[in-house]
């Protein structure tokens, strides 16, 4: 028995020693098995596949646009257009929405941090693609420059500065910080470099990728706001020229306001994101408002202020068919008009009693009729039914409630930018504004003042994430509105978001914005 056992074990023993000799003293290098490893481990060598990186960058930006939090929240919930009241135990979310609307956020605000990270990452990824080491084609480079301009523009707009890192810089190098005017110049340079190489394309299903018109739109947007970044008078004629160029590319105003937010090609959509519109649909609708392709109904959060609703034409207390409202305020179905097409869910501003698609009245969770009120008791302590809900993308439209089609740039915005530029150059914007108002079924105005222009932009572009930008340009971001913290009113520190506290720690070149 001993012999047998030993005979069996002997080869194992031999193998053991042999294998010990062969494998010992490794160089401890990892191998390229499931990832591309940069040689030398420290130096950027260009992105491995420009197209795949560009795709990923677009995907990430789409995701950021589709979200109700972060970027969207910082540009909408902080304004006079939108708030997210805490409803009983719901939507408290650690005060993250309340502090935005009341202008009491701090440098540790999670959306401020996450948005800073997201946008700056977008900038860096775009820089990696642009870098000659990546060897992009002219159009790939143009696309990346457009996306860098778009992302950096929001960094500049929200924080007043923009950190910058060369793709070849290692982790040990602290990014430099571009001042507002430097960042602005980089954005303009990027756009001017990009536009010639972006594809020339009119209204198209392919406009989820930037075309020339998208480049002009971004250029117009940046130039119109330039005074806040450069301190000098913007090139308003440049804005007009850029908008004209968009028109030359084949875009223009189109009638049928709520049709614009369907996924069909239309004359106004310059750039859209392949991102689910579910956030825009459900974040305001009540739990008991639903569509067949969704479960659990709406999320019963976002609402608007009475004052904003009152800026539209129509019966101030109801929004049913025939209430004298302009087209953009939409309408709420009632027992007669609710049907399986509209699911009982209205368009635009939802106020008053809501209905099932069969025309019976909807109830809230405690079992009372679901009547959306105009007024709210406060930022906290709300019931399920307080506040008017906003909906532009309709779950009954083709593609349903999660279709991947959200508008980023729209011609009506360009049209109003041109009107504003002309007005600021001393011209009269009335006819341009009225052109749009007539198309939207609103009474033409006798004249257009600055505040009329701001209000018109609000009515046309609500929840299209430009409200903060508009209020700032018109100097109205610090004005008082409902539920704003009284001490924050008039305080210009809120015009910029704070540099997130951990971003300050990560880069000694950053300086906290004044007041924080």
């Amino acid at each position, binding site marked *: 028995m001993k012999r047998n056992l030993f005979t069996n*074990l002997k080869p194992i023993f031999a193998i053991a020693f042999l294998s010990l000799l062969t494998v010992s003293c490794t160089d401890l290098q990892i191998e390229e098995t499931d990832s591309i490893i940069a040689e030398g481990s420290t130096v950027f060598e260009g992105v491995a596949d420009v197209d795949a990186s560009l795709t*990923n960058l677009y995907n990430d930006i789409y995701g950021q646009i589709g979200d109700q939090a972060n970027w969207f929240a910082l540009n909408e919930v902080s304004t006079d257009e939108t708030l997210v009241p805490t*409803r009983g*135990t719901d939507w408290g979310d650690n005060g993250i929405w309340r502090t935005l609307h009341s202008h009491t956020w701090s440098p540790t605000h999670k959306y401020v941090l996450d948005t800073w990270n997201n946008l700056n990452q977008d900038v860096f990824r775009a820089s990696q693609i642009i870098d000659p080491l990546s060897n992009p084609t002219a159009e790939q480079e143009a696309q990346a420059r457009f996306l860098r301009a778009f992302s950096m523009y929001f960094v500049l707009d929200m924080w007043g500065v923009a950190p910058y890192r060369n793709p070849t810089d290692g982790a040990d190098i602290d990014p430099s910080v571009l001042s507002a005017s430097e960042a602005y110049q980089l954005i303009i340079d990027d756009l001017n470099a990009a536009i010639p190489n972006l594809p020339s394309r009119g209204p198209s299903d392919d406009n989820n990728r930037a075309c020339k018109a998208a480049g002009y739109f971004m250029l117009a947007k940046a130039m119109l706001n330039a005074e806040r970044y450069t301190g000098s008078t913007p090139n308003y004629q440049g804005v007009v020229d850029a908008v004209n160029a968009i028109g030359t590319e084949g875009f223009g105003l189109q009638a049928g306001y709520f049709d614009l937010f369907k996924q069909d090609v239309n004359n106004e959509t310059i750039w859209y994101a392949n991102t689910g519109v579910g956030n825009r649909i459900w974040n305001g609708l009540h739990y008991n408002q639903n569509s067949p392709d969704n479960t659990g109904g709406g999320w019963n959060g976002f609402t608007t202020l009475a004052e904003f609703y009152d800026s539209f034409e129509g019966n101030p207390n109801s929004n049913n068919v025939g209430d004298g409202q302009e087209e953009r305020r939409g309408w709420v179905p009632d027992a007669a008009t609710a049907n399986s097409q509209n699911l009982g869910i209205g368009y635009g501003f939802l106020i008053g009693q809501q209905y099932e698609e069969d025309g019976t009245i909807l109830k809230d969770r405690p079992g009372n009729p679901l009547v959306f009120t105009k007024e709210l008791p406060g930022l906290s302590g709300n019931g399920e039914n307080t506040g008017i809900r906003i909906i532009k993308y309709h779950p009954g439209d083709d593609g349903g409630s*999660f279709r991947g089609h959200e508008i980023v740039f729209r011609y009506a915005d360009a049209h109003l930018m041109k009107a504003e530029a002309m007005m600021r150059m001393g011209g009269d914007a009335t006819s341009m504004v009225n052109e749009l108002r007539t198309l939207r079924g609103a009474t033409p105005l006798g004249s257009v003042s600055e505040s009329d222009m701001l209000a018109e932009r609000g009515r046309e572009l609500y929840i299209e994430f430009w409200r903060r930008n508009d209020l700032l340009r018109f100097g109205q971001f610090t004005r008082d509105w409902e539920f704003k913290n009284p001490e924050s009113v008039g305080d210009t520190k809120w015009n910029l978001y704070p540099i997130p506290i951990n971003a300050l720690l990560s880069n000694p070149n950053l300086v906290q914005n004044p007041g924080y």
Partner: protein
Amino acid sequence: MKNKLLTKLLLLPVLLLLGGSAFAQITVSGNVSDANGPVPGVNIVVKGTSNGAQSDFDGNYTLNDVANDATLVFSYIGYKTQEVAVNGQKNVSVTLEEDVESLAEVVVIGYGTTTVKDATGAVTAVTSEDFNQGVITSPEQLIQGKTAGVQISQSSGEPGAGIDIRIRGANSVRSNNNPLFVVDGVPLSGGNTSAEGQNIGVGSNSSKNPLSFLNPNDIESISILKDASATAIYGSRGANGVVFITTKSGKGAKGSGWEVSSYLSVASVAKTFDLLGAKEYLAQSEAFGFNVAERNFKNSTDWQDFIFRTSASTNNDVSYSNNYGDGNLRATFGYGKTFGVVENTSLERITGRLNLNHRFFDDKLKLGLQSSISRVNDETAPTGASAGFRGDLLGSAYSANPTWPTGPDFDGTGGLLSPATALAYTQNVSHTNRLLVNFSAEYAFIPELSAKVNLGYDTSESTRIAVASPKARNFDQGVFGNGLGALNDLNTESRLIEATLNYKKDFSNSSLDVLAGYSFQDFQRDGRNVSAWGFFTNDLNEMGDAIENSANAVESKISGGYQQYGLAGNIADGIFVNRLFPEPTTDFITDFTNISVKSLFGDTFDNKDELQSFFGRINYSIADKYLFTATVRADGSSRFGEDNQYGYFPSGAFAWKINNENFVGDAVSTLKLRLGYGITGNQEGLGYGNFTQRQRYAGGDVIGDGGEINIPGIVDVSFPNPELKWEETVQYAAGLDFGFNNDRLNGSVDVYRKETKDLLFNVLAAQPSVQPFIFLNLPNSLVVNEGIEFSLGYDIIDTDDLNWNFNFNVAYNQNMVEELQGEFDAGTIRGQGLSLAFAQKLKAGEPLFSYFLRDFEGFDPVTGQPIQTDVQDFVGKSALPDFTGGFSTGFSYKNWTLNAYFNGQFGHYIYNNTANAFFTAGAFRGGRNVPLDVLTTGESFDAAADVSTRFLESGDFVRLQNATVSYAWPLDDEAFFSSLVLSVTGQNLFVITDYSGLDPEVSSSPAGADLLNGLPVFGIDYAAYPRPRTFTFGLNAKF
């Protein structure tokens, strides 16, 4: 042949060392026996020399060249050592006396063993006799509470739940404070062996305990090294302590024998919430003015009753062992199935083990083999702490309207989740196979010098399939009408090669023990994560098959290597395949045959890390009074760049056996002072290739709620950081062991200070960067743990028939983040209206897991709104206990034995996230059920339930963890059985606590992706799987 040459060469200096001394030499032979007959394998040494032999199978031995006046020393583990003077006799036979105590005294240290008495560091061993009894699903539960300063918490009562082990506090800010486990000499990888469950619309599941593959009945002893002077021999992996698991061999057996043990357990949930019944729910709804007609679904359902069950579990083991003189073997087979107290949860374990030891060439060569093979089948209900506002199965059961029917298709929940739906329409099963083999060969060139080679192989294959049926209403991620599923394969393979050289020499008044070694270990991980959306069947089994078959079908169509593939209705070009090599490309396959889901996405991973080490240890003792130990280990790891691949981890220790001094009287049987210092490292949780720039196709939740996929592009997954290096812990420790009256009263006191610096942390990258976080060694970071441990044992009554003893241990640990730049939110809170809420913060000047909350002062008597400033701040409380302790007592009278074991933790706080999420007035308004007292607090139904001190509670508790009564059947020598023991064990019999939740020993951690800043969650109770109360009936027979 070569060996002989080597032997001679090596003998030469040794002989020179010895010098010539022997005159008048004789040959001595004899026989060694004990009460039962011959004892093989006994060491016989001529005292003061290296001349020795071992007894053979018949207990016989022969020793040449023995001086006439020499003394022979007979030693064997488990027996008292005997010294016999030769006095010219040629035949010296002895009868050894068994020494029960000495067995317990052997402790495994790295690459060797020592005894408690000779240890210089803080080491303890718990042997199988002292193990906790009852239902044990993983080995660390065996020693829970047995050792001071070793805090073992199971995160929940789920069979196979993950564990948190903290030895002397928490050093690391990452979730990697678990010690290194070494099973029969093979250090296990710190990673998981089963995949974390993907979210299928009701939150994801944390991965299971990677140690549950070991059969607790196979374990002989567990040794724990607590201080750095002991753990530094494991260098970069020793910072959190080292736990050695030694499996049973046939060594102790006398001849051959069988052992059979069988356990049957009955478990039930120990405590439930006192929720409103259907009638009360309606009555309260009416009383508070809610529309009762809308809330009444005309049933009466006790949802807790619906999801909880009284479960029966069984565990059976058969083992055969044989000690045949030149070696021994032990083979076991075990089968156990533990049913959880929540429906649809179970853990099934099938294990086989074979341990062989054999000695050759006059015992010069020793071969050993320890091997185990296991299969663990795990069934999980949707009980992850990652669920959204609706809660998981448990949360929904605590909050569901009691008038809902129990049909899974009920559609009146107003968007809430019915527990019946969650149970009926989900399935989540995983299978893990694991093979762990260790082969060792030790050769003694001369008695003083031996070499050992150790080969370890550890491999596991795990598959988890989780599906949610298209019939599942009110799940997230578009489940209803479509169905969602995930398949996660994880394969691991680790190879270990170790070679050590050991020189031991006794001099006249001192002894020397030198060890030098080399070790190489690699860790391979590969697998795939597949998710699928849109099924053509409602049958859960068929859905699982559909994912697996569809994934396999796609993979079979792909030629060449790939990272990812996927298909979805919005991708017109076909099945996309993303390949990284040789050049990144995306191509398409247009063959859709054998695919039975609408959208599919598969992502693969495959990587390997290596660890290479050189180490040495010197033990030197003078006069059996002064003991010195010095160790050093150089560890190289492929997780770091070339600049910092190697780390050096030295340690030193000194012990003074004061009781061996003349000035100490005989009443003091033990008095030993220990001083130690050491540097250890930690690299767990760092992950693969974080020091270099790496790119992959982006992964994650790629399938949208409508089934659409945006084809992922390439993204950087790590940033170049050649500076990355080990996290380092310096420990200073001192201890005093004491024993009086032959150690009848014994104990020890230990103090320590641990300083951890260069904390490895996933920090915010300076933007712009490719990703929000990068792994860095935080500059100027320091976490300090300081503490005192005390243990005491006393044999109160020690007679033949009647014995009574107790053991008590208590440990105090103070944790402090002394230095840290920045502050990091932590302690993820979940629940409706609690998105982004957090309850803890990491900041300098506060302990780890410090609570950061609003200060709740009650409800405004007029408005019912909470009175609190809407700002969070530190509240001076932490989730880490100040004191942990255990108390056990054993009582035996003739054949009866009673053991009871209590444990407790004090000074820590628990955040009751369950109450925050579900037990508020607002929850009742939303149609949820609550305990009655929620409605009497004066809280407005419109009040927000923000994270505040309202939900922070003391977690102090004392638990009767375990009580066992056993009876050893009286047997005479002729009986078939050599031993027959019957036992009854109760576990978790009662808990004394003020905590209002179900159990104060709790920590629900969401899946990794939901952790804020990647920081672990501790002390937060979010609908944790309740801890059962278990009764076990056991039978153990030997024959």
